[in-house]
């Protein structure tokens, strides 16, 4: 059946082609269907001089020792197992961007800080395992080191050209010389590039105590020259309820505003200087004030941004 239709189409081909030599081609094709042996003859036929005059049609180019039918059968099948991928376009990659590794000099009388922020992933184009981490530590004199960090490990999927939807867990901790506290939370996030070229990361957390928290980070690169980049950055934290033991009040709890000026010695290596404002807000600020703590801090900072891949 298939063969019959095939022959019919080839005849159609022959009829449609205006040049007279095409008939020769069609005949050759049909011939090669008839017999295996003849297929070989055709391939070798090229060696003899065809002679001058018009270009002649010699039928399809076939691998040595294969008939047209065999080639057409082969064309129906996926590549043989021992063939490599012609374009391995689904390979896994590793990428780590240490966005902040910096020293923060406190402008008032609080202790200085060392701060980090990094994010990295392993995975392909659409599915990735992300690590997003943020932390700070300071030397408190006699009280020793104090610090805190938030570490999100999430699975992310590219749901639209610019947005990764992420789900996973957060491990947050706080420590002083004599106290270590930590808390686990489930995390949901949306990370990507918003219209206007804002890098955005919005995360929602439900802690092991069933408290709900949210975090919104936005940053924007303003290129001053090809290598000098000014980057404003804002981070807002929210809570859906009071968490007194952690000094958190409902609503907007904290605002962090950063300005960084970096020089891209390489795209993946840029030292920078900058400034930071960090303030507790609303009820959270009230709670801190009641404890006798400062509610806002100013820093000047310097550090390096780099990527590992």
């Amino acid at each position, binding site marked *: 059946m298939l063969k019959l239709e095939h022959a019919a189409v080839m005849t159609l081909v022959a009829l449609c082609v205006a040049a007279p030599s095409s008939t020769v081609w069609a005949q050759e094709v049909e011939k090669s269907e008839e017999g295996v042996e003849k297929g070989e003859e055709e391939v070798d036929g090229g060696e003899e001089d*065809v002679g001058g005059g018009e270009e002649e049609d010699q039928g399809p180019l*076939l691998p040595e020792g294969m008939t047209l039918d065999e080639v057409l059968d082969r064309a129906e099948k996926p590549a043989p197992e021992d063939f490599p991928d*012609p374009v391995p376009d689904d390979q896994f990659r590793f990428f780590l961007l240490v966005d902040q590794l910096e020293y923060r000099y406190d402008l008032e009388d609080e202790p200085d800080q060392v701060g980090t922020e990094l994010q990295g992933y392993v995975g392909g184009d659409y599915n990735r395992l992300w690590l997003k981490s943020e932390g700070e530590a300071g030397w408190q004199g006699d009280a020793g080191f104090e610090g805190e960090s938030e570490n999100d490990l999430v699975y992310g999927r590219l749901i639209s050209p610019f947005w990764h939807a992420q789900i996973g867990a957060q491990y947050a901790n706080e420590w002083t010389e004599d106290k270590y506290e930590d808390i686990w939370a489930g995390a949901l996030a949306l990370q990507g590039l918003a*219209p206007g070229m804002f890098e955005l990361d919005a995360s929602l957390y439900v802690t092991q105590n069933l408290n709900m928290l949210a975090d919104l980070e936005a940053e924007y690169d303003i290129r001053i020259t090809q290598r000098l980049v000014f980057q404003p950055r804002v981070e807002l934290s929210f809570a859906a309820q009071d968490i007194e033991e952690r000094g958190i009040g409902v609503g907007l709890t904290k605002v962090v505003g950063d300005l960084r000026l970096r020089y891209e010695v390489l795209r993946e290596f840029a030292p920078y200087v900058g400034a930071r404002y960090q303030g507790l807000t609303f009820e959270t600020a009230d709670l801190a004030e009641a404890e006798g703590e400062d509610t806002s801090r100013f820093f000047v900072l310097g550090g390096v941004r780099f990527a590992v891949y």
Partner: protein
Amino acid sequence: MSRRSFVKGAAAGLAGLAISPSLQAKSKPKGVAGNFSVLDASKPGGIDLYIERKDLLIDGKVGRPITINGSIPGPVIRMKEGREALMRVHNRLGESTSIHWHGMLVPFNMDGVPGISFPGIDPGETFTYKFDVRQNGTYWYHSHTGLQEQLGHYGQLIVEPEDDDPVDYDVEHTIVLSDWTFEDPTTAFKKLKTMEGYYNFQRPTIANLDDQVKATDKGLMEVIGKRLNWDWMRMDPTDIADITGSTYTYLLNGRSARENPTFTAEPGQKVRFRITNAATMSYFDFRIPGLPMTVVNADGQNVEPVETDELRIAVAETYDVVVTLPDDKAYTVFAEAMDRSGYARGTLAPKEGMAAKVPELRRRPMLTMADMGMVHGSMKMAKKAMGGEMEMAKPVKYEAHDEAKVSPIKNRTELPVKDLPTMVEHGPDEHGPGSITMAKNAYRQFDEPGVGLGDDNRRVLSYGQLKVLETPKDRRPPTREINLHLTGNMHQYIWGFNGKKWSESQMIRFKYGERLRINMINDTMMNHPIHLHGMWMDLYVGHEYGKNPRKHTVNVQPAELLTVDITADAPGQWAFHCHLLYHMKAGMFRTVAVVRDLEGEPIDAEA
């Protein structure tokens, strides 16, 4: 004392002091890139090609390219139409390799695409390529394995015609343009994948706002407004080339601009340049200031001679031009990278050692709203409308359909071959996360020379000027069409067709013997040189049907609607892909299966 001998002396002196012998040996490679030979693959017994990693001086610095018979580019391989070509390829690399004969019609197992034609050539192995040569013209060859092409694995291929050559010339010179980096190509690919705009050092900045005001005659506020507009769309209007002169050294026959390769001819002689763009990612704008060029051949096919001052040569295309050396002066052969981040250069002169003035690089172009298919306020469209060619008729919609599951058309009706729609509107299908569909409309651009060209009073070649010299045999109207959107997500560096990478796709079926049409719709903001293996593409440029040019690689401009008709006369499986190496590597690739009929099951592309 010349500088070189001084350096040598200094090195020797240092070596005497402390430098270890191994380091010294490494810093002194024997060869210089660009010393390639000419081989005749149609001679009895054929030829041998040795693929080998070797230290060579490239632009005066030590590189470690993949050489063919010791050189980059590889030897010029000549063949004779009507005879058999025989090449034994010996792999002396530590990895698999291959050679694809670009533009040559061959049995599918001789096409040299690992994974489609054959398994590749293992280290230490020899593969024998043997096929009948049934065409003539200028072609080229290159590795189809991994990113080897970036490392110098390419060369020119010339097929001499069996009959008289219609081109009249006295001397012939070959030009292989390419882009070289001392970086590991794998690293370059990683950078593209992870850090958008990594190589672009011509971005819009605060510092160049003023410059932009001067260049465009627009007010500062208008320029800022435009920038915010692009920002709003999350696009960069200077995204002209993914990899730029910031890492590339542009080469002409393996030589950098300052090495100035020279082509000699007697005054009054007609010189035929066979030009191949063997670059992985770089388009070149080619001109010889002071000399008009007559284009006589495109992609190996003779065309009606057309005189021009400049031509853009997309990656993987070839053009033959004839110029007459008018006097005993030197003329610069100038190939400017499309994004103006560098150039390759040579000299045409009566004798070695001469040089002419090297032109300044022009201002880097910026994309316009027209490149996004925005009709209103677009210069391109306005120009067209004024010329009366463009009817502002309602655009047609070409929906993307799953290219792997095209059902055969029961009533085979012939499709029109003239006056095809000038514009299509994008359908609702946004092709998923792998595609940022920027162009809401796509339109015919075969009369457009391309971004950054045509506004400085030079004549620039466009596809619309190409006419085949002799009408090829099969010019039946096609009876089936496939709409193929060229898609990409430049932010994530995902490239594909209809939003899918190769690994997500199934094979595209062509029915053996059929004439079919592919409407390519470029949804992206980049140019893509699309290459079909094994078969010709008859490019619709609005001529009488028999005169439309025949190509192996077609450049599709941003927001362009481009139509090719194909005779599916090559049974087997073939590659169809974007020839920007890193776009291909990122998935802008399909396997085409030329099969008995269209009704079969979808064929998985991946084994």
